[in-house]
C-alpha cells in the first residue's frame, strides 16, 4: 500500500540567504551601504520548474490509483460502469439477481457483483433504494468469504470546500458500511476512507460529471 514518496529538503535557499525583514529603512538616516550584501552561495533546489513535462489535466480514464491491489470497480466489463446517470447501474442486474454469489462473478457483467459503485445525491450520504440489491449481493459474498477485506472509498463532487467534502465522502462510505453491517458483515471486513473531491472520475464541471463523482467504490483485493 505504501506508495513512493520522496521528501526533498528545500535547501537553505529559503533560509540561509535570507536577511532580516527589517531590511527596509527610511532614508532619513541611512547607514552607509555595502555591509548587508549576503555572500553565501545559494544552494537552491529548483524543484518547481523543469518537472512539468507530461502534464495532464486531472484524471482521465476513471482509474484511481489506490487500486494497485484491488479490482477496479469501474472496469468489470461493459455493463459495470454507471454510465452517465447516477444509479443507472442497479436496475439492469435484476434478471441476474440469482446469479451465483462467487468471487468469479465480480468480473461477470451480468452479476450484481460487477456493480461496485454506489452513487449519491448532492450533499447527501443516504443510499438510494435501487442499490439495495447490489449491496445485498456484496453482503452475501462477504459472508461467504469472511477472510476477504474490502475497502469502501467515498468521494464527493467538486462543489463546496475540500475538507468538508472529505467528511461528506467518509459519511457516504460509512452509510455503505452500515448497510453491510446491518446484514451481518463484521466491521473488521471493511476499511473505509473518504477522499473528498481529490480523486474525481470526470473532471468536467457539469451535472453529469458531478453525478459520477459522488460515489462510494467497493474495492475487493485482487
Amino acid at each position, binding site marked *: *500500500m*505504501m*506508495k513512493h*514518496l*520522496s*521528501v*526533498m*529538503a*528545500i535547501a*537553505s*535557499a*529559503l*533560509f540561509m*540567504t*535570507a536577511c*532580516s*525583514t527589517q*531590511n*527596509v529603512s527610511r*532614508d532619513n538616516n*541611512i547607514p552607509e*551601504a555595502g555591509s*548587508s*550584501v*549576503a555572500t*553565501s552561495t*545559494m544552494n537552491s*533546489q529548483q*524543484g*518547481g520548474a523543469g*518537472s512539468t513535462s*507530461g*502534464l*495532464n*489535466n*486531472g484524471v*482521465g480514464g476513471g482509474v*484511481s*490509483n489506490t487500486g494497485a491491489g484491488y479490482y477496479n470497480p469501474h472496469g468489470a466489463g461493459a455493463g459495470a460502469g454507471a454510465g452517465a446517470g447516477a444509479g443507472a447501474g442497479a436496475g439492469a442486474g435484476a434478471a441476474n439477481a440469482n446469479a451465483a454469489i462467487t468471487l468469479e462473478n465480480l468480473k461477470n457483467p451480468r452479476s450484481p457483483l460487477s456493480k461496485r459503485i454506489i452513487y449519491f445525491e448532492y*450533499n447527501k450520504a443516504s443510499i438510494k433504494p435501487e442499490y439495495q440489491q447490489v449491496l445485498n449481493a456484496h453482503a452475501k459474498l462477504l459472508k461467504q468469504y469472511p477472510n476477504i477485506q474490502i*475497502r469502501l472509498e467515498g468521494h464527493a463532487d*467538486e*462543489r*463546496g*470546500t*475540500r*475538507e*468538508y467534502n*472529505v*467528511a461528506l465522502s*467518509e459519511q457516504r462510505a460509512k452509510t455503505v458500511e452500515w448497510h453491510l453491517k446491518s446484514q451481518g458483515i463484521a466491521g473488521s471486513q471493511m*476499511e*473505509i*476512507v*473518504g*477522499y*473528498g473531491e*481529490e480523486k474525481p472520475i470526470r*473532471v468536467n*464541471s457539469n451535472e453529469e460529471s458531478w453525478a459520477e463523482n459522488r460515489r462510494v467504490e467497493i474495492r475487493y483485493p485482487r
Partner: protein
Amino acid sequence: MKKLLQLTLLLLLPLVASFTHADIDLVIDKSGEDARLKLVMAPFEGDQRARQMQTVIRDDLKRSGQFSFVALPKTIYISPFGGSLNPQTLKPTGAEFLLRGKTVPIGQGFNLEVEIIDMNNGRKLTGFRTNYHQKQRRIAHQTADAIYKQFTGVRGAFDTRIAYVASQGAGENRSFKLIVADADGHDPQTLVTSHEPIMSTAWGPQARRIAYVSFESGRPAVFIQDVMTGERRTVSARRGINGSPAWSKNGRQLALSLSVEGNPEIYILNLADGNLTRLTHSRAIDTEPSWTADGRSIVFTSDRGGNPQLYKISANANAGKPQRLTFEGKYNSAPSIQGQKMAMIRQQGGKFQVALMDLTNRASEVISRGSLDESPSIAPNGGMVLYETRGIARKHVLAVASGNGLEKSVLHSPYQNVGHPSWSPFLYH
C-alpha cells in the same frame, strides 16, 4: 467613535491640506466606487535589474487593490531620482503620487532606493532604501511592503510565502506535489511528491514548518514538515479522518478535524505531549477549524443546521454551545482568520465564491467572482485572500483577491492544476 470621526474628516479634506506634512501616515479611503490611490512610476534608474524591481513592485501593489497605476506619458519629462519636480507636470495624468527608484551597485549586488513624490506639491513625501538580498525579488517585495505601509498604515504582506499542491497526470501516473513559493507565485520549490492526494496545507508560525494531510498510506494522516530541513513527522494517523490542520499562534497546538470517535469533530492536539482535547459533540460534520486572533476560540464549518455554516466555539475543553456566525448564503465554509477579518467560501446563486467578514460587526461581502472557488487563505496582514479558482479550460489556478474586492490576480505557476493554497505568516528570516 471620536477616532472614526477624525478619520472621516481627514478623508473629506482636500488632499493638499491633509498631506502637506511628510510625517503623516496616509490613510486610504476604502469606500466608494474605486478608491484606489492613483500612482505613476518613472522608469527605475540602473541596469536591467532596476526595471525588474519596478515590475515586481508595481504588480505587488496592484494586487492589493489599494493602488492603480497610470501610464507615464512619453511627452512628460521627469527629472532623475532626487531631482526637483514641478507639481503641474503630472496634473494631466491625475496621479497623486510619483514613485521614482534607482539601483545602487554594491559589489555584484545592489541596493534599491525608492522615493515617493507628492504630486500636489512636487515634494518628496518619503524614501526607502532596501538592502541587497540574494533572492533579488525579495528586495522588490520588501520595498513594496514599505510603500504599502506608508500609504495604508498596515504592514505589507508581499514578502511572504505560500504553499500549495500541484497535481498532474492521470490514473496510476497521477502525482501530487507540495510546493512552496513566494507570495506572488514565483520561485516554486517542491517539498514532497506522492502518488496519493496531498491536501490542506497550513503554515506554522514564522513560516518554518508546514502541516498538511497526505493519503500516501491509503488513508489520510496529518504531517508536520520543516521547510528548511525537509524533516517531517506524523502527528495524527488515527482511524478515520485526520484532516484540516490549523496552527495556534504560538505553534504549540494544532486544531484538527478527526473522526476517530466515529463522527468528524473538532479537536485540539497539543504537539508537545500528543494530548487531544475534543471541542465539539454533534452528529453533524464538524471540520475546517480556524483560530480566532486572540487564540481563545475556534471557528469551524458544521452542517448541524442542515447546510454547512460557520460556528464559533471556545478553544478550551467543556467549550459550551457553539455560536453560529454566518446567516447569509446557503453554504458557508472553510474559514481563514487574520485579526478581525475572516475569509470563507460562500455559496450564493449557485456559485461558490470567497466572502470576507469583518468580525467586529459580522458584515460580509463577496470578493471573488469564480463559480467554484475554494480553499481561501487570508494574508497575514488581512488585506488579501489567496484562493483556488478556475482558469482557462477549467484548470485549477491560484488567485489573490484584494480585501476590497477591486482586484483579482491569477498567480504565476509552472503547474497546470494547483490547489490547497496556504498563505504564510510574516517572515522573520
